[in-house]
């Protein structure tokens, strides 16, 4: 234990660890020292002089944001002298400030406004004409208003230190100083909008939000981003049933203040005019609008006809990577206990099953790392994937681990991914050489001649360095799957300390789809279908028998359709036609295709029935991020004409004569908590917005074939179907860069 430093702030004693900044010590006591340039987690700037405080025995006022506490210090944060100094600083800041608060985006949540209100610097002694500059459009999402800028450098630092993009600089001098973007008049960057979020004033404004509202006129709902698998917490600002902004308002949760471009701007597919709002039924070859009742009744009828004529083996179900756990759980119940088929799968973007299987076999089922653990790790190994594009939050956490506490990063990749900038060791391998590299690292095989493109000693050096680490977090993409996951886990667990693992799945609920058993051979919680005990548990809960033989996996479903063996297909929130690049002929053998979707996708175009589903903003439920942390989705608004997949499944079950006991997603969640191994999570934490870690344990069957697991390799600006309907994500020039571009 280090000795604490004792000092007095505003007459009260306090003891804090050595090295604490005065401003933080005061904050711990509930004393707010106003600050503009100081920002927790970023380097110190000392530019704004708002945080001046009086320290006894020091001749002049000192900046609390750069002064480190000392024993016996006596500090006063609010004396008349201090207040006067702050007022004077504000008067300077306002010299050229337009004071257009009544129309400014930031009005009502502006730190400058708050400070002026507190210290009353409303009148000024400067009589000169204010310098004016026109607003500049840095990109379609980021605008800059020079006169409002107080030159706190926060935007520059968050972009350098938080994003590792370094897009901003300060141009010119004195009263003419301004923020300049990296490409002349324009930004070329990750467009994350962190700079807008962190700007204390209305100088940087957002292309989707600016001049649309005042902050007190919107409703705020905390929910979870619907794009990648990292599960950022976000707050949607909704006005008149339209989402206009997303930011993680209270900086809580797995992501703190982080959101990538998709989370901060890419929610606008929700507002898209191309959203489906009425069911479509194919009549005489054409899809025509119909009522919900007609569409669902028709679906039940057609399914029953196929079942009666060809049996349950002729029906197949494809689930979603972005619907809720509750919906996925009900979907597999519907497939298994109502349709009586295990022909059930989803587009697997990571091999979660093999990870759970390997960890369980090794008696290390608790070795899943959380997002927070990545940020706190002392050593991180990233194999395959390009997290900067595919998992922006995880990439951010990795960078933070390196920057904030000197973690060592080890990268094995075929490409020159951006994270190599932070890597202390970087092993470049031949394309798809990651799995071989793992076997070589584990000493199972000697690396082939052309595995490592770099120097000959690269691999042994890399392996050697890793053995010196402990408590390593191992993060891997779809390059490692099936057997490869087992190899990786067994070797990883021989490293010292608590090695933990993360498999990187593409989408918001890729992990949940796997956890909830959207598999032909695996029940929820990675229980093998072949296990009598596991089956019986669900059979007794549901009061019906489950089909015992494994069904068809996704590839086999598609083959079955082509071969005319599958006659009816139900698709929920997926677009296999695009994912698997199918031709229309691929579905020719189908008698019936049902699609529940937000948009008329390529798959929906072929469907006999399309029903309009709600988006993540219009429903409640839970999502599990790629690390296995569950978070609650909260309904923010309604969309006329749509129904959630949950409502659709409940209605279909009713039409099949089932009496399911669920009224809401919460009822389903309670059953999941009770029945699904690893999901015995406390409900209260979830409801107040925490990310609750699960601990799956099971022996799912090994991966049947390698082409079942593949990532879509979405970039920062794409996200399967959803991004295609986002104005924001398509509006930025950076989206046109070749895949994998490092900004």
């Amino acid at each position, binding site marked *: 234990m280090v000795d604490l430093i004792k000092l007095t702030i505003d007459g009260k004693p306090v003891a804090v660890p050595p090295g604490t900044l005065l401003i933080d010590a005061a904050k711990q006591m509930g004393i707010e020292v106003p600050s503009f340039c100081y920002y927790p987690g970023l380097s110190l700037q000392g530019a704004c002089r708002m945080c001046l405080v009086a320290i006894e025995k020091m001749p002049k006022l000192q900046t609390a944001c750069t002064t480190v506490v000392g024993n016996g210090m006596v500090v006063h944060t609010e004396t008349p002298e201090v207040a006067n100094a702050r007022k004077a600083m504000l008067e300077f800041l306002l010299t050229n400030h337009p004071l257009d608060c009544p129309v400014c985006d930031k009005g009502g949540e502006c730190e400058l406004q708050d400070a002026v209100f507190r210290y009353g610097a409303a009148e000024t002694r400067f009589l000169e004409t204010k310098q004016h500059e026109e607003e500049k459009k840095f990109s379609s999402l980021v605008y800059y208003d020079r006169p409002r800028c107080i030159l706190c450098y926060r935007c520059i630092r968050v972009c350098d230190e938080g994003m590792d993009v*370094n*897009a*901003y*600089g*300060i*141009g*010119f*001098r004195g009263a003419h100083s301004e923020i*300049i973007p*990296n490409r002349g008049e324009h930004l070329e960057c990750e467009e994350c909008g962190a700079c807008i979020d962190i700007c204390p004033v209305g100088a940087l404004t957002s292309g989707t939000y600016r001049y649309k509202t005042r902050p007190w006129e919107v409703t705020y709902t905390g929910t979870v981003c619907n794009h990648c698998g990292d599960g950022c917490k976000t707050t949607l600002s909704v006005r008149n049933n339209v989402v206009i902004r997303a930011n993680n308002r209270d900086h809580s949760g797995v992501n703190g203040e982080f959101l990538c471009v998709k989370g901060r701007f890419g929610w606008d597919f929700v507002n898209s005019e191309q959203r489906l709002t009425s069911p479509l039924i194919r009549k005489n070859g054409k899809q025509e609008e119909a009522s919900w009742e007609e569409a669902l009744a028709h679906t039940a009828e057609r399914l029953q006809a196929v079942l009666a004529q060809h049996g349950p083996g002729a029906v197949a179900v494809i689930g979603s990577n972005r619907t809720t756990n509750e919906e996925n759980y009900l979907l597999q119940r519907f497939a298994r206990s109502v349709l009586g088929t295990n022909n059930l799968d989803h587009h697997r973007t990571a091999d979660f099953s093999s990870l759970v299987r390997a960890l369980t076999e090794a008696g290390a089922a608790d070795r899943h790392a959380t997002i927070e653990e990545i940020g706190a790790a002392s050593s991180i190994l990233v194999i395959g994937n390009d997290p900067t594009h595919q998992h922006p939050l995880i990439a951010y956490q990795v960078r933070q681990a390196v920057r904030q506490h000197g973690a060592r990063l080890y990268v094995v990749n075929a490409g020159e991914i951006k994270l190599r900038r932070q890597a202390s060791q970087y092993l470049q391998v031949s394309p798809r050489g990651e799995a071989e590299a793992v076997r070589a690292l584990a000493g199972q095989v000697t690396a082939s001649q052309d595995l490592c493109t770099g120097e000959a000693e690269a691999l042994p050096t890399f392996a050697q360095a890793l053995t010196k680490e402990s408590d390593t977090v191992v993060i891997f993409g779809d390059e490692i799957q099936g057997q490869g996951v087992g190899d990786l886990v067994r070797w990883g667990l021989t490293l010292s300390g608590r090695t933990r693992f993360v498999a990187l799945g593409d989408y918001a609920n890729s992990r949940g789809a796997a956890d909830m058993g959207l598999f032909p051979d695996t029940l929820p919680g990675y229980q093998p279908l072949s296990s009598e005990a596991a089956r019986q548990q669900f059979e007794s809960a549901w009061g019906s028998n489950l089909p015992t033989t494994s069904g068809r996996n996704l590839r086999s479903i598609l083959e079955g359709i082509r071969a005319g063996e599958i006659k009816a297909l139900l698709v929920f929130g997926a677009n296999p036609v695009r994912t698997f690049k199918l031709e229309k002929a691929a579905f020719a053998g189908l008698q019936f295709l049902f699609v529940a979707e937000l948009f008329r996708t390529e798959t929906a175009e072929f469907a006999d029935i399309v029903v309009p589903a709600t988006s993540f903003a219009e429903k409640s439920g839970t999502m599990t991020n790629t690390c296995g942390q569950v978070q609650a989705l909260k309904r923010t608004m309604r969309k006329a004409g749509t129904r959630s997949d949950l409502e659709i499944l409940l209605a279909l079950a009713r039409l099949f004569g089932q009496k399911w006991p669920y009224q809401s997603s919460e009822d389903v969640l309670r059953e999941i908590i009770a029945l699904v191994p690893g999901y015995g999570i406390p409900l209260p934490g979830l409801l107040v917005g925490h990310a609750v870690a699960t601990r799956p344990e099971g022996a799912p069957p090994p991966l049947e074939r390698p082409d079942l697991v593949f990532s879509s390799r979405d970039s920062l600006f794409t996200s399967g179907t959803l991004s295609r309907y986002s104005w924001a994500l398509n509006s930025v020039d950076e989206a046109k860069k070749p895949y994998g571009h490092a900004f």
Partner: protein
Amino acid sequence: MLSDALKHKFDTVIARYPLKRSAIVPLLLFAQDEIGHVSDEAVEEIARRVGVRPIEVVEDIGYYSMLHRKPVGRYHFQVCTNISCMLRGGEEIFAHCAKKLGIGHKQTTPDGLFSLEEVECLGACCGAPAMQVNYDYYENLTPEKIDELIEKLRRKDQGSRIKD
């Protein structure tokens, strides 16, 4: 394209400094002397050589008013209107230049021969009103002297063109 001579100059200048980035300002001046302004190419090249990001070089250019991102005239008139010069008619000199050349502050004549800029103290107060044209100083200015100078520079330019 930057000339080989300039690149060679870069090498020798950088070698003089214990910290490479300290060489940024001299490098910028040498680049500007050759090109007439600091081009994007020069920015990239300097950034690469001293190991900083291009935007950091751009920051420096903005800070120093004698560095230009866009081309200026072949003869860049920098007329001082700071206190000593103002008292001795500097503002009138500036106005005269503007009228004679038909351009204003930070503007360039269409033929690209002259540009004009109002600047702060040139450190030549003893010869106020003063002006700097490229690297040459002209002191105790009068409108007549300005006219003569402009004439001389025009002739010089034509002379050099004939020679070409």
